[in-house]
């Protein structure tokens, strides 16, 4: 209640002021808060609680939930032969994002953080794929990769190599998807980096430049450390994005060939939702949720450290 008293200013006695505030703010609070809180609770929090509940039962979605099975669903998920693939693929997406996509984005951001017309045009070009719906991006690339009419066989003809039908090839399907993901999202990370780079005071860089510090050293010792929080954010988005990757996979491969290109969410869709196995799906949800929370907590810790510095 101390917070109430702080806004009381001099003239009005604190006690009277308090009562006045309470009455005055009760109705606005009743108007402003419940709609959001109720929607959020009913459609975001409760489903997550339900997922945890379902995960301990064998239930097909109809009738009462009675068939308690303990941790059986979790065992089923963890021993499912496609779950390992899904987790592995999601981790590959994280790795490719961190090792290829983000460095590429940073490189582009360093080149494009200044002002200029041609720079703006390039920036916009790189950003357009991000704004495109994943489904559309997936279909466009399904065409690019099409072994009969797409662009890839034409590139193959030009290089005189026989290109495989990459999306139907157990080995090539993952690199092919990674290329699409990089195409789609590196511009997004670039934009975050550019925002960070633009907030560096010009004098700092200019002073170093006048002191004869080499361009690469400026990047290494001034720019990169100063955009650390932007990098942390990008890493966070890259990881959570990888964990929820779904839309782009469905049009491209639908998880195939032979379930080799599933991510965690397409796995959930294929084996939990389509078959209405709520216990199984609930267990996948809980595992995914735990992964997200772990990432978020780690992220908070890192971010907190950045702010302290």
């Amino acid at each position, binding site marked *: 209640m101390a917070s109430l008293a702080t806004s009381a200013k001099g003239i009005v006695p604190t006690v009277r002021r308090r009562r006045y505030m309470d009455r005055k703010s009760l109705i*606005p609070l009743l108007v402003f808060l419940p709609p959001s809180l109720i929607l959020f609770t009913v459609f975001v929090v409760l489903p997550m609680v339900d997922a945890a509940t379902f995960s301990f039962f064998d239930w097909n979605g109809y009738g009462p939930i009675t068939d308690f099975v303990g941790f059986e669903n979790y065992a089923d998920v963890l021993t499912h032969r496609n779950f390992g693939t899904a987790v592995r693929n999601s981790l590959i997406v994280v790795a490719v994002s961190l090792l290829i996509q983000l460095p590429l984005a940073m490189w582009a951001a360093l080149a494009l953080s200044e002002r200029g017309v041609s720079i703006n045009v390039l920036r916009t070009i790189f950003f357009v794929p991000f704004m495109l*719906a994943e489904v559309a991006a997936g279909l466009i690339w399904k065409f690019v990769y099409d072994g009969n009419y797409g662009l890839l066989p034409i590139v193959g003809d030009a290089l005189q190599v026989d290109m495989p039908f990459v999306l139907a090839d157990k080995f090539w399907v993952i690199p092919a998807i990674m290329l699409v993901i990089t195409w789609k999202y590196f511009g997004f990370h670039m934009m975050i980096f550019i925002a960070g780079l633009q907030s560096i005071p010009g004098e700092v860089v200019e002073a170093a430049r006048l002191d004869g510090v080499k361009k690469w050293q400026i990047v290494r010792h001034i720019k990169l450390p100063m955009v650390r929080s932007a990098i942390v954010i990008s890493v966070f988005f890259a990881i959570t994005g990888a964990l929820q990757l*779904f839309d782009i996979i469905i049009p491209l491969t639908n998880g195939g060939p032979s379930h080799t290109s599933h991510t965690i969410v397409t796995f959930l869709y294929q084996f*939990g939702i389509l078959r209405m196995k709520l216990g199984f799906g609930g267990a996948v949800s809980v595992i995914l949720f735990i992964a997200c929370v772990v990432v978020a907590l780690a992220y908070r810790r890192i971010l907190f450290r950045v702010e302290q510095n």
Partner: protein
Amino acid sequence: MASTTRRKRQPAVSPFQWFTLLIIAAFVIVPFYTTALGGFKEIGELRVNAFGLPASWDPIRFVEILVGPSYFRSLGNSLLIAVGTVVLSTLLASMTAFAFAHIKFFGSKFLMSYLMLGLLFPSATAILPLFIKMRDLGLLDSHLGIIIVQVAFSISFSVLLFHNFFKELPKELIDAARMDNCGYIRIYWYVTLPLCLPIIATVGVFNFVGSWNNFLLPLIALNSDAKYTWPLGIMQFQGEFGSDWPRILAFLTLSILPAVLFFLAAQRYIISGLTGGAVKG
């Protein structure tokens, strides 16, 4: 002057960088370019003349799609859902953020943290129980159901953006209004909202894009063709025409064109939403 001459000797972007950037730009554009032209080409032409201009500019496929039943219907459905989501989420999130930013009450910190839990996990996580919940509430196969759920999932981020903005507003303004015996609801409506048009635009555009591109939720919640949004429509169209690529490419072009144009115009707000919200996250 010394600094400018030095700068000239050390240009921001070297020729090698320009060259690489242009190659990447070509890599980004080529899929769009071939998609847009592919709709004019015959299927055989795609193989022999992938990058060149089409032999004829016959718009027959585009016309067929435009006069067909599903194109405008699915775009209309998407538009309806997106507008509904934007209006509702802007209203609810700004009200909630206003309460957190300007009204002091017991538990405000706790409730704000509670709402921010939504930033932790994506909507895909609990999609199956969500489906059950929508079914039990009779919200399946309805646009309203999609809108409500999308609003619920956008609340956390939208409240965060509004809250960050409201905190920066001069406190004297609110205090002055309160001295004039103006209630919080009227302050919200007449003082705060008119001042926060930029953040309304940011939140609005951001949620619009999210709704317009949403696939998973409509996929599990809608089952009648007449209610399909455009991502569902395009998947259905692709399923129907298999590998009749010119037709699919024409459909793709028509579907993404309005969105791409809109997004180019609204790009600024999308970026400020991403960076503004993210930095404080």
